[in-house]
């Protein structure tokens, strides 16, 4: 009995960001699985190590960097032992032993011992006055010594070296940075960028001595100076060594756990002892060690998944970017920006404004990014680097970012860095840039967390790009590397694509099956995942998959569009926008009979009856006797048309006829988002085909087909896909394109961002150039649409219950 009740014991060695992040992830997945004990060397709860430099520079206080206070540990029943280093792992008896001789038994052990500062192997490196720069202890010591002023020499002009230089300079010391290479940050910058950076830091009073090898720290009893190999020397009151970090593997090594540069782990973050996991800077995975925080978080997720006994995720390494955290200096670099054979460079240099941008390309893909002075497009470029996007189409404006006419900031809004703190970022919830940044500084790392804590980007989502940029610019390298595997929602760690793959491969036929199979954290899901997963099930299995009404938004359940007062709008389908006097009369009579408060033409050339109570919907549908216009759904909406050849004196093609045919072929098509089409009869383009998801323009010789246009939240002119001769070809291409979109785009992704993401080349290849694929795509769409019935007719016939009437009327 007693044994059965005992929880498994998890011991965590290391109370830093990687260890505690893993515990947090674990608690989210399996809150009651383990009795957890955490050992930390430092006498603090978990703090945000990225913020050491702002603390050193006096821009923040130590308390502001705490991520998990003591109450958090207590609240989750975690035993925290700070200031008590673990000195031995007894693998035979499965327990750890601390310096003071205490022992703690474990069933699972998590090593997150981090890394230590490496010291230059030169005489005098142990003199009083020599410092490293690694943790809060170093910051406290440096803060204290800096009050005495004097000369500080920094050995090593890497990220940490420059940050500490900035911090000590801000505290009034005379700072000299010594480096063995020709320019600072030689691993993040090329010579030109390095020179610009050096100049900017020199302008703040920091001296640089480049291409100097340090030989010895000078001084009797304490630091007095530094001598170089060429025999010259400089005086110094303190010396700070930032020449690299070394994974702390001593503990693991002594216990016989295999180590090389770091503790060796596999793709599940397990060491050679299967009871022992390791995450963070102390590990070596596929030959790589990481010193940035972003990979640690990815590792934490995977390790937690396995500790929680889910056993599904794998860590496959990280692509990282770096950002210098020195106030007022903008620097972003990622990938291999040095170039080489078969590579091309795109550069932009504005020495006057201090802006330098360089992108290295190989076979139309981004291999390296270096941005100095203006890093606003960093996250956008980095996304393309990670996704290995073909950027041929973007090449012209690659260095200027993704600006568009009327850019409200979907994906790339470049200006966010320049906005004042008072600027409103989230228009739906009235959240300012300053509010978001201060929430991020309080310890948020993901979009999901920002949404939860501030509401920003939680409503319409159009500011998501801006919020992501704020995350990226506030957190630097911490944020972003996981974008490729962005979880579908907070209920799971799986990405959209991973969920789709599982549905396809495992033949999952309902939302519930998917949730169960993939161990959804909330068995009921949320407003984010339910509709998405239902869509993915229906798209993968149009005939067999269960269309779960409880997983659809109210609009798609009531087959009408809910309004602010809880009434609905009714928009019947009017093919191509062409109606008849009789039909108009019938609509008018229905509106009068039911005293419909407003009758209005829509932007898509249809008629809208607004203000209808839910209870009246079935009666109105019955009296209209028209099919649903699907104006409420993530579905084919309308095919807008101009008058065309039949009456218009300019028309060269019959656009109304084609619009009606398209609409009849595509009605009842569900999609990741709404889909709008248009057909114009001549290049005057009166139906505005170039701001539609799929638009055609009649020309003398046939039709031009445009895709990926949008006239709404973010204007995007459509791209020309191809030219065809006949109406039949237009319909075939439309079907193939839309099916490809249905199968590949994420739920709630419009065609405009999707086209940009996958690139025109790939779409053209499948939809235009390869006739076999085109036919197959179109056939799959036909089959899917064939499974759908007109919902209004179904409701009128009593085969579909939209729960229009109240469950009951209670009278007292």
């Amino acid at each position, binding site marked *: 009995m007693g044994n059965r009740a005992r929880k498994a014991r998890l011991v965590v060695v290391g109370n830093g960001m990687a260890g505690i992040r893993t515990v947090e992830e674990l608690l989210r997945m399996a809150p009651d699985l383990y009795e957890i004990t955490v050992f930390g060397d430092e006498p603090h709860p978990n703090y945000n190590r990225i913020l050491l430099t702002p603390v050193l520079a006096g821009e923040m206080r130590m308390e502001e960097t705490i991520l998990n206070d003591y109450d958090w540990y207590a609240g989750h029943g975690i035993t925290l032992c700070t200031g008590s280093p673990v000195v031995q792992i007894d693998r035979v008896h499965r327990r750890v032993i601390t310096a003071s001789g205490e022992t703690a038994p474990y069933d699972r052990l998590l090593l997150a011992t981090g890394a230590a500062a490496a010291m230059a192997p030169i005489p005098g490196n142990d003199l009083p006055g020599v410092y490293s720069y690694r943790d809060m202890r170093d910051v406290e010591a440096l803060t204290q010594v800096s009050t005495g002023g004097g000369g500080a020499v920094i050995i090593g002009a890497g990220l940490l070296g420059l940050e500490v230089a900035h911090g000590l300079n801000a505290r009034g010391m005379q700072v000299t940075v010594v480096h063995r290479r020709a320019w600072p940050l030689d691993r993040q910058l090329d010579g030109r960028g390095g020179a610009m950076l050096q100049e900017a830091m020199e302008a703040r009073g920091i001296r640089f001595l480049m291409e100097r090898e340090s030989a010895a720290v000078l001084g009797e009893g304490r630091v007095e100076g530094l001598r170089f190999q060429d025999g010259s020397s400089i005086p110094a009151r303190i010396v700070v060594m930032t020449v690299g970090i070394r994974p702390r593997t001593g503990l693991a090594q002594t216990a016989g756990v295999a180590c090389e540069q770091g503790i060796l782990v596999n793709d599940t973050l397990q060491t050679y002892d299967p009871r022992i996991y390791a995450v963070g800077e102390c590990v070596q995975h596929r030959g790589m060690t990481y010193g940035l925080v972003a990979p640690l978080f990815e590792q934490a997720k995977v390790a937690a998944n396995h500790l929680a006994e889910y056993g599904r995720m794998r860590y496959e390494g990280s692509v990282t970017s770096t950002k210098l955290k020195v106030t007022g200096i903008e620097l972003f670099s990622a990938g291999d920006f040095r170039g080489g054979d078969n590579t091309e460079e795109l550069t932009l240099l504005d020495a006057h404004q201090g802006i330098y941008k360089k992108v290295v390309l190989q076979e139309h893909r981004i291999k390296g990014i270096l941005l100095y002075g203006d890093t606003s497009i960093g996250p956008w470029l980095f996304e393309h680097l990670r996704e290995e996007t073909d950027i041929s189409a973007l090449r012209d404006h690659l260095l200027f970012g993704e600006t568009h006419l009327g850019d409200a900031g979907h994906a790339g809004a470049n200006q966010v860095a320049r906005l004042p703190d008072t600027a409103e970022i989230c228009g739906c919830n009235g959240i300012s840039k300053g509010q978001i940044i201060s929430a991020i500084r309080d310890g948020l790392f993901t979009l999901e967390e920002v949404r939860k*804590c501030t509401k920003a980007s939680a409503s319409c989502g159009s500011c998501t790009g801006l919020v992501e940029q704020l995350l990226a610019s506030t957190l630097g390298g911490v944020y972003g590397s996981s974008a490729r595997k962005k979880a579908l929602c907070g209920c799971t760690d799986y990405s959209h694509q991973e969920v789709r793959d599982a549905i396809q491969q495992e033949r999952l036929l309902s939302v519930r099956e998917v949730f169960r199979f993939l161990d959804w954290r909330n068995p009921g899901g949320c*407003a984010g995942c339910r509709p998405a997963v239902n869509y993915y099930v229906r798209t993968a299995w149009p005939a067999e998959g269960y269309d779960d009404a*409880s997983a659809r938004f*109210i609009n798609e359940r009531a087959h009408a569009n*809910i309004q602010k007062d809880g009434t609905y709008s009714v928009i019947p389908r009017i093919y191509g926008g062409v109606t008849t006097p009789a039909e108009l009369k019938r609509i008018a009579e229905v509106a009068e009979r039911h005293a419909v408060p407003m009758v209005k033409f829509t932007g898509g050339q249809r008629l809208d009856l607004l203000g209808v109570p839910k209870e009246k919907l079935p009666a109105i549908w019955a009296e209209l006797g028209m099919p649903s216009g699907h104006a409420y759904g993530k579905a084919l909406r309308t095919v807008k048309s101009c008058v065309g050849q039949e009456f218009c004196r300019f028309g060269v093609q019959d656009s109304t006829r084609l619009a009606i045919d398209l609409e009849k072929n595509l009605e009842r098509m569900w999609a990741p988002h709404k889909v709008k089409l248009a057909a114009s009869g001549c290049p005057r383009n009166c139906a505005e085909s170039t701001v539609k998801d799929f638009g055609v323009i009649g020309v003398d010789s046939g039709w031009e087909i445009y895709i990926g246009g949008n006239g709404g939240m973010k204007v995007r002119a459509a791209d020309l896909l191809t030219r065809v001769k006949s109406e039949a070809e237009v319909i075939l291409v439309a079907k193939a394109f839309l099916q490809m979109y249905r199968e590949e785009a994420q739920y709630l992704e419009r065609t405009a961002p999707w086209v940009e993401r996958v690139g025109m080349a790939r779409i053209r290849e499948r939809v235009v150039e390869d006739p076999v694929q085109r036919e197959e795509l179109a056939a799959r769409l036909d089959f899917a649409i064939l499974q759908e019935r007109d919902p209004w007719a179904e409701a009128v016939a009593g085969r579909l219950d939209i*729960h229009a009437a109240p*469950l009951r009327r209670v*009278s*007292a």
Partner: protein
Amino acid sequence: MQWFPLGKVNEVPPGGGRYVETPAGQIAVLCNEEGTLFAVHNRCPHRGGPLSEGFVSGTTVFCPLHNWQIDLCSGEALPPDQGCVRTFPVRTEGEEIWLGLPGEQP
């Protein structure tokens, strides 16, 4: 407290809800994925959205208008939102759902 029969358990879709007209106003009767029933005023504290049309998951309902999340046990909006909706007792007897409404106090 007065109890009123509302209908059968299977008339409320799991993961969603129905609405009921009562002298105390419209009340949403909601059912989660495990079949647990809840009853709250059918007006989101934010802009009055009909909660009977929202998603229900666990003990949370997501308002269909602006996605506010309301805890169905307490009626409180989940942070960062603030607001409260009135809750009502609901129970089942066999297949029948019963709703408790505050009766006249003697």
